């Protein structure tokens, strides 16, 4: 029997606002524990929530990118439960009226587009961070209250691959809109996955298994594929799939049981009485959307149409929003868009990879890269001089024009000097003109090689070529 895999995904995205969701504590993801805390984050009695405008703007932007309807009246609810990481004994969330509802995103599977429905998007607050040791746990409240958006998909994902592409797309949206770092490894994007299977053709859902603690997008795919296989093996053996929570064991590449699900927790939701309903004006919503940083698809279109880049290169640059921003900034200083892309993809990326740093940690101003590309393209320097300048540039972050002077990376551009050199070579090799006329074009290359040799490669090849041709034709 063949089974269809049914997957629903809940994604929590940690926003990178300057202050928390409901408190004014700063967020800098600093390392010293309990230094980004105000009384509300500790649930000291009498503290009250104050909704962060930027968090609402972020939620609107992501909702819009996911084609969701936006509720212009903001309501919050309390989700009541006890846990060691939950300071207030409740989390302020949006249960009854999520800001975003009924949307979708499009993924590409085997060249075909597939729409994945999204049920809801809501704002809530993060819990405090627990650091576990052998026989105790330490609590750091820096994370308590950081704004989150939760995005809940419909159960319309059918494979590990689709799930991976879905999560990639969400990450792309939240990073390009500058809402979040979207780093799964660091927990700023967290995925809980529900997997069930059913015989093809059936319209009933099977028993759901929840998989938690997935720390990379690759693992989302692996975990789902493993889990679907595990469940189908159980069913084929005549056993039942049990409702449970599992985690993905990276070493074993399989899901392992965390706990059996007993009856669902009753969160006793009710409207948060300390936050009045907040009416969002049409202008506010429109402005949030209009000022949303450019998303991937728009950027790709611009890179293809405005910069005229080829699609492969454009997509490489768009692998990260930071790289795209870097390119955009550099492109303000040159019109040589494709050579600029080539240089960034090969030389800059090569440097980053070699030093295992990100473009954000790359300390060369984008305009210097553009200057260097201009120097190379105008053939004022050759490629080896280019490399020499780049090496110095990454260390000193100063204008390639200055570096060029400092290292004396100057080509001979003087036509009469080059002419003299060419004539020297032709005099020493009298057969060359005849060879050339007889169709032996390599004579041209030979002359170039010789004059370069005489001047250590520092002759402007463009000018030299022109003169060589003229002389050979004589």
């Amino acid at each position, binding site marked *: 029997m063949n089974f269809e895999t049914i997957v629903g995904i809940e994604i929590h995205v940690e926003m990178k*606002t*300057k*202050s928390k969701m409901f408190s*004014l*504590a*700063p*967020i800098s993801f600093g390392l*010293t*524990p*309990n*230094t*980004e*805390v*105000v*009384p509300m984050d*500790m649930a*000291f009695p009498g503290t009250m929530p*104050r*909704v*962060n*405008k*930027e*968090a*609402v703007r972020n939620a609107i932007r992501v909702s819009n990118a996911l084609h969701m309807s936006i509720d212009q*009246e903001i309501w919050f609810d309390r989700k009541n439960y*006890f846990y*060691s*990481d939950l300071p207030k004994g409740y989390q302020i969330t949006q249960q009854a009226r999520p800001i975003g509802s009924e949307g979708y995103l499009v993924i590409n599977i085997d060249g075909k587009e597939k729409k994945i429905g999204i049920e809801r998007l809501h704002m809530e607050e993060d819990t405090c961070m*627990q*650091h*576990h*040791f*052998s*026989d*105790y*746990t*330490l*609590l*750091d*409240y820096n994370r308590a209250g950081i704004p989150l958006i939760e995005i809940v998909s419909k159960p319309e994902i059918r494979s590990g691959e689709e799930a991976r592409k879905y999560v990639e797309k969400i990450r792309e949206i939240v990073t390009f809109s500058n809402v979040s770092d979207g780093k799964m490894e660091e927990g700023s994007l967290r995925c809980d996955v529900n997997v069930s299977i059913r015989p093809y053709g059936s319209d009933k859902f099977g028993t759901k298994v929840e998989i938690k603690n997935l720390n990379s997008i690759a693992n989302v795919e692996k975990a789902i594929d493993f889990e679907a296989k595990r469940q189908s093996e159980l069913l084929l053996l005549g056993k039942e799939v049990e409702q449970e929570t599992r985690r993905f064991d990276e070493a074993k590449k399989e899901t392992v049981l*965390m*706990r059996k699900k007993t009856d669902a927790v009753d969160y006793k939701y*009710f*409207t948060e*009485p300390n936050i*009045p*309903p*907040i*009416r*969002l*004006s049409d202008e506010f919503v429109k402005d949030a959307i209009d000022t949303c940083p450019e998303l991937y698809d728009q950027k790709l279109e611009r890179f293809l149409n405005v910069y005229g880049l080829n699609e492969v290169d454009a997509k490489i640059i768009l692998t990260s929003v930071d790289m795209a921003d870097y390119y955009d900034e550099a492109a303000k200083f040159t019109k040589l868009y494709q050579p600029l892309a080539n240089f960034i993809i090969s030389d800059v990326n090569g440097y980053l990879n070699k030093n295992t740093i990100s473009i954000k940690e790359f300390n060369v101003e984008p305009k210097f890269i553009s200057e260097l590309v201009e120097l190379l393209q105008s053939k004022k320097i050759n490629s080896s001089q280019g490399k020499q300048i780049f090496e110095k540039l990454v260390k000193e972050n100063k204008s390639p024009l200055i570096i060029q002077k400092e290292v004396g990376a100057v080509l001979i551009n003087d036509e009469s000097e080059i002419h003299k050199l060419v004539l020297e070579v032709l005099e020493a090799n009298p057969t060359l003109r005849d060879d050339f006329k007889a169709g032996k074009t390599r004579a041209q290359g030979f002359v170039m090689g010789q004059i370069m040799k005489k001047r250590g490669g520092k002759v402007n090849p463009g000018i030299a070529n022109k003169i060589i041709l003229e002389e050979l034709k004589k």
Partner: protein
Amino acid sequence: MKEVNKEVLKDAANRLLFDMKDEEYDTLLNEFGAIQHQLNLIGNIKGVDEVSPMTFPFDVTITYLREDEPETPLSQKDVLKNAHDVKDGQIKLPKVVG
């Protein structure tokens, strides 16, 4: 509605993370008898289920949202001042599992 008996009440109390003496559950069970009567008084109101549940005393809808500007946080010392068990600048608990 959920049936009320001592077990249900004890379970409810335990889910709220406390326990009571056995006789307190008896007292509570008696109180629930009176509460049931009180709840009927609410149910007696004509048209009670035709209006919406009220959280706020009157229309308090606002248009204000606070700017995303942080304030000075508490010092770590102050954060931990009222906590019972502290280690390495953090609050210490027995190991939390699962």
